[in-house]
């Protein structure tokens, strides 16, 4: 009996301490993630003089000098176009291959299914630098080097596991009875997919597509190794901003990070679903 009484007294204090710890950790993590983004945005939106000045202003001056200089910088527009092209191709390829694989994993039992799922994850186990050199050699031989499609193929291998896993959890969440009901009501397998499964899965598939786009958008290593003339934005910035003034680096960084942030924010619900976290 005494232990129960002690526990009930100790509990509120322990909970209070636990709450403090929780709040402190949350604040620390937020600062960790948000502070660099904040500095990036403030400096990108400040005039070149303010970037190097001290002390810093808390609010940016909304001077678009740095950004407009960056946009007009030679080669940026082309790199931006290359990035969008490669990311779009990556998106189409990873959904084109990933969604059917996700559907098959969720609906059919086939020998080696578990191994297949494991292998899908395993593709992420090889560090890209390890693959990049042989790939570069192979691409030069086949003529795929320095092309948007060649880079998109590499980015697709990076994005594909996520596309498979997201669409797998997506299709698994749609009861198979809905499909079966459609079959008994006169649909072929394809019609049932188009009329029942696709409308229900479309928002998630779009999310998965955006995620693939973002992976390609952010990728720098393969882009730097496999392209020379047709650089993507990341590779271009890596190459040319090393010697640029600080305010240009901030503008370039913001131009890269902000679209990615917006994309990920838009599809966060489905990414959480992939990792099995219930949110709502």
């Amino acid at each position: 009996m005494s232990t129960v009484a002690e526990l009930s007294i100790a509990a509120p204090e322990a909970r209070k301490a636990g709450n403090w710890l929780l709040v402190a950790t949350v604040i620390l993590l937020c600062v960790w993630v948000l502070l660099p983004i904040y500095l990036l945005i403030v400096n990108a939106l400040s005039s070149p003089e303010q970037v190097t000045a001290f002390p810093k202003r808390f609010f940016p001056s909304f001077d678009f000098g740095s950004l407009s200089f960056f946009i007009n910088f030679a080669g940026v527009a082309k790199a931006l176009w290359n990035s969008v092209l490669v990311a779009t191709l990556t998106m189409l390829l990873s959904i084109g291959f990933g969604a059917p694989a996700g559907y098959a994993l969720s609906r059919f039992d086939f020998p080696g299914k578990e191994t297949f799922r494991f292998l899908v994850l395993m593709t992420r186990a090889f560090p890209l630098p390890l693959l990049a050199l042989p790939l570069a050699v192979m691409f030069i031989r086949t003529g795929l080097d320095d092309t948007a499609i060649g880079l998109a193929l590499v980015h697709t291998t990076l994005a594909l596991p996520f596309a498979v896993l997201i669409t797998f959890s997506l299709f698994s969440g749609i009861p198979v009875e809905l499909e079966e009901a459609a079959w008994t009501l006169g649909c072929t397998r394809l019609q049932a997919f188009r009329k029942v499964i696709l409308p229900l899965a479309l928002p998630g598939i779009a999310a998965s597509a955006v995620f693939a786009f973002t992976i390609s958008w952010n990728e720098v290593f393969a882009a730097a190794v496999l392209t020379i003339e047709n650089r993507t934005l990341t590779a271009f910035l890596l190459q040319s901003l090393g010697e640029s003034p600080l305010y240009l680096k901030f503008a370039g960084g913001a131009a890269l990070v902000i679209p990615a942030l917006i994309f990920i924010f838009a599809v966060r619900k489905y990414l959480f679903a992939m990792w099995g976290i219930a949110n709502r």
Partner: protein
Amino acid sequence: MAEIVIKQVAKRFGGFTALHSIDLTITDQEFMVLLGASGCGKTTLLRIVAGLETPSQGEVWIGGRRVDHLPPRDRGIAMVFQNYAVFPHLTVFENIAFGLRMKKLPQQEVDGRVNRTAELMHIEQLLKRYSGQLSGGQRQRVAVARALAMEPDVILMDEPLSNLDALLRLEMRAELKGVLAASKTTTIYVTHDQVEAMSLADRIAVMHQGRIVQAASPVEVYRNPAARFVGSFIGNPPMNFIPATKTANGSWTVAGLTLPGPKSDKQTIEFAIRPEDVDAGNEGINATVRVVEPLGPHTLVTCDVEGGLFRAILESNAAVAVGDHLRLAPKPDRIRWFDPETTNAL
């Protein structure tokens, strides 16, 4: 006209045999209930008729046409699922119209049929709603209406009421019976609920471990179980079984009582009687009362007979107390006998 003939249908999942060679004929417009505990193969059999599962062997015929190689859409069936399977992205109207649109019926015909079946299922005020805005009972009505609107030869129902609460289930049961009888379709209905089976069926097929043990009218299944399993599965409380020893040819001793019975070479067989088919009196089976449960209309008495449990349903004014010794006389025309080895009725 749609008679369903199931010929030697078997289904194996890897090493597990879900169905052993099933033979069953369901006549046109008959209401056939497949009854059994979970895992007995009843849903598998239904899904084979629907075309959602392929039999490992055997044939399925619907309306004189062999269908076991046809996809579900070409079999002239409609199905109602346990979890309703109402399409969440369509309105109730479009759900009911779904199959009609697949048939490419003219809009006028679609409107007519949807409104007619919606009215029949009392959901005409819900036609513009989505499934998320409906209760379980309403979704069930939509699922049935969607099946009926197809005007199929055969309606297949897989435990359609088991997700509803008790009161709603009772109401829907009566309504389903009326609607399906009026629609003149052949129905196969899968359930594990024996009360549902008894109240709905023209004929019940009792299934056990992948076999049909008995297929007969509800009263026949209840009164004359073809096997020990049927007697012990149907009825609440189930049948009582007591070992009987041979005294002479055609004469058996059951817990101290000598009864005329079937002629058999065996030395022991099983005597069986339903709890309501015994009377407490001066002669009969020797029983010691263990539990008395007054239930209102009658009193359920659980007794000890030769070391086994024996349940008797007595009149509610019977004065019985725990520890009493009773003599329970079985009604002669209600006594059944079973072979202990084959478990079949003798």
